[in-house]
């Protein structure tokens, strides 16, 4: 550094960017949804009719609200995992694979023994097994990063592309999870899990599919918030992510923190996958995780590292997804419109980091 004063003065002169960090996700969401409405209008479909169908799908009944919230639960968990890794400056884009592993192993646990366990353990054990499978999948990327310097974006992505065929294999192979061929069906999917392993419903009387995953997600949100913002571990993760050498000099075990961050991150994905199987789908198919990983990634991106942001983003996308499905069925507008909106949101937010990053260099 030749001129120590210049950098610090220049930095001090920058405007406060914090309002922007909130505004950018909001504005880009509004722009993307606006474009979505324009696209719907351009198809000649009735915009009001489409929005009506959309609303009905999101929140038109207790059942729809419950289904939307169930989607939001999984997205929130993946999003929490994303921001947990993000705290250590790691980008976990492997949510899809972590969900897949979690769902697959939760199914296996539920089908092989867990169903007979007493006292609610029947569903807790598969949840734990699924979480562990996801954690292992994420932790593997963390290990490769720490031990071999492998870029975690590429490794998590590759691990997803490895996990998806594994799920396919497990439901296609009779000596793995595939159900025996009966007269009725021979689809490559697992048998339905025992009733005891299904997650208890919160409101069993009114027909809402909303299950206790909501409580699990709520606890997870608070826990992640506390750990990231108010615990020594949160500071350490941040330090390691910002400057590994200085952290190492200060006595931190940097590799351990990288592995830990990715393990926890992957664990959230695994938990999400387990909850998807145990809460609503009840049997494993090869594409059960379809899209949730990337949606959860978008939720994590939108949140800018805040647990509250994850909740908002997860609710937004959970309801959007439900709405878009109904829109396609009732108003004949392709649900792909929502994909377009999601893509736009990601691109706009990523493109505006130049505004919100205090220091974009290096």
């Amino acid at each position, binding site marked *: 550094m030749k001129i120590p004063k210049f950098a610090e003065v220049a930095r001090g002169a920058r405007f406060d960017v914090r309002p922007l960090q909130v505004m950018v996700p909001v504005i880009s969401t509004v722009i993307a949804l606006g474009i979505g409405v324009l696209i719907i209008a351009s198809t000649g479909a009735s915009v009001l009719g489409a929005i009506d169908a959309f609303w009905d799908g999101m929140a038109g009944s207790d059942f729809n609200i419950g289904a939307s919230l169930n989607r939001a639960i999984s997205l929130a968990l993946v999003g929490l995992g994303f921001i947990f890794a993000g705290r250590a400056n790691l980008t976990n884009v492997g949510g899809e694979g972590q969900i897949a592993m979690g769902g697959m192993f939760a199914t296996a646990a539920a089908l092989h023994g867990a169903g007979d366990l007493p006292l609610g353990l029947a569903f807790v054990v598969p949840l734990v097994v699924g979480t562990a499978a996801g954690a292992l999948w994420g932790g593997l990327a963390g290990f490769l990063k720490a031990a071999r310097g492998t870029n975690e974006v590429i490794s998590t992505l590759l691990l997803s592309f490895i996990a998806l065929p594994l799920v396919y294999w497990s439901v296609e192979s009779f000596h793995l999870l595939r159900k025996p061929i009966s007269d009725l069906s021979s689809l490559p999917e697992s048998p339905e899990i025992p009733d005891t392993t299904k997650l208890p419903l919160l409101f069993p009387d009114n027909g809402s599919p909303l299950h206790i995953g909501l409580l699990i997600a709520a606890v997870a949100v608070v826990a992640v918030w506390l750990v990231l913002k108010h615990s020594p571990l949160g500071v350490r993760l941040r330090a390691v992510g910002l400057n590994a050498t200085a952290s190492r000099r200060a006595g931190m075990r940097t590799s351990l923190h990288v592995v830990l961050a990715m393990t926890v991150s992957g664990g959230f994905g695994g938990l999400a996958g387990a909850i998807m199987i145990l809460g609503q789908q009840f049997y494993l198919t090869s594409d059960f995780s379809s899209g949730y990983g*990337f949606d959860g990634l978008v939720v994590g991106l939108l949140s800018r590292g805040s647990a509250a942001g994850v909740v908002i983003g997860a609710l937004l996308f959970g309801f959007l997804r439900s709405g878009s499905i109904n829109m396609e069925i009732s108003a004949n507008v392709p649900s*792909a419109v929502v994909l377009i909106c999601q893509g*736009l949101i990601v691109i706009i937010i990523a493109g505006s980091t130049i505004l919100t990053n205090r220091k974009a260099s290096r």
Partner: protein
Amino acid sequence: MIDEQMAVFIGSGLRLAVPIIFAATGEMLSERAGVLNLSLDGMMLMSAFAAALTSWATGSPLAGVAAGVVVATAVAAVQAVLSVTLRANQLVVGIGFNILALGTTTFLYREIFGPLSRDPIPGLAQLNLPWLASIPVIGPALSSQTGLAYVSILMVIVTWLLLKYTSFGLAVRAVGEDPRAADKAGISVARTRYLGVLYAGALAGLGGAFMSVADSNTFTENMTKGAGYLAITAVIFGGWNPWYTLAACLLFGFATALQFLVPALQLDVPVALLLLLPYLLALIAIAGFVGKGRQPGALTIPFERGG
């Protein structure tokens, strides 16, 4: 019987490899310049759709190929603005584009073709070179390819020559390795990277167009099925070298084609394991357990002068 199956296997292996060869070759050059286009899959998908649409509308598959290249290059241009000029996270932008491309092509396909359309799309003709076909086993497989397949090998040669023997190639390598040094040598980092990304876009366009108007003569939703990711994987596995990348693409193509051969030969190998093989190999490669390829020093790192 076995010979016939081998010929089919080789033919389909090559056909599956060609789009990956196109995309990976362009992507290799772009990555040598320091920009990773995770959006490769999106570019291919957009191109496949544009090519199918144009070929269907005009009756000319060549016009389709041209349209595919134009559309993919346009996507690449936006990717370049974001990742070079706006210094956005290249990986996140890439994922965004892939979601956007999937949404856009799915939407337009349903709107334009309608969910039940089965109209045939004019496709490129096979070359059927008699002197090639006379070679035993591989002959029929080689001669049954379209001209575009041969172009893919040509592009590998062109890219190799560009990198090794031209000042543009030297600039690309310098910009991807040490942009600060390149900048001080008077090279425009931004211009070189833009050209690299556009090159990747144009080649991904050829690859995408190949899928719809040369290979399957139709468009289906999400028809690339992650071929773009596979191409990026091939670049890593090929150690950022054009010939090793080509070898990786062929390996991946034939590995994918095995899923048709294995059941025909009544071998008891799970198809799923064949599907994950390329990714597993690439993971092993980037973890540094095989291969000597070193990733370009400034890959995915935006350049900002001064500071």
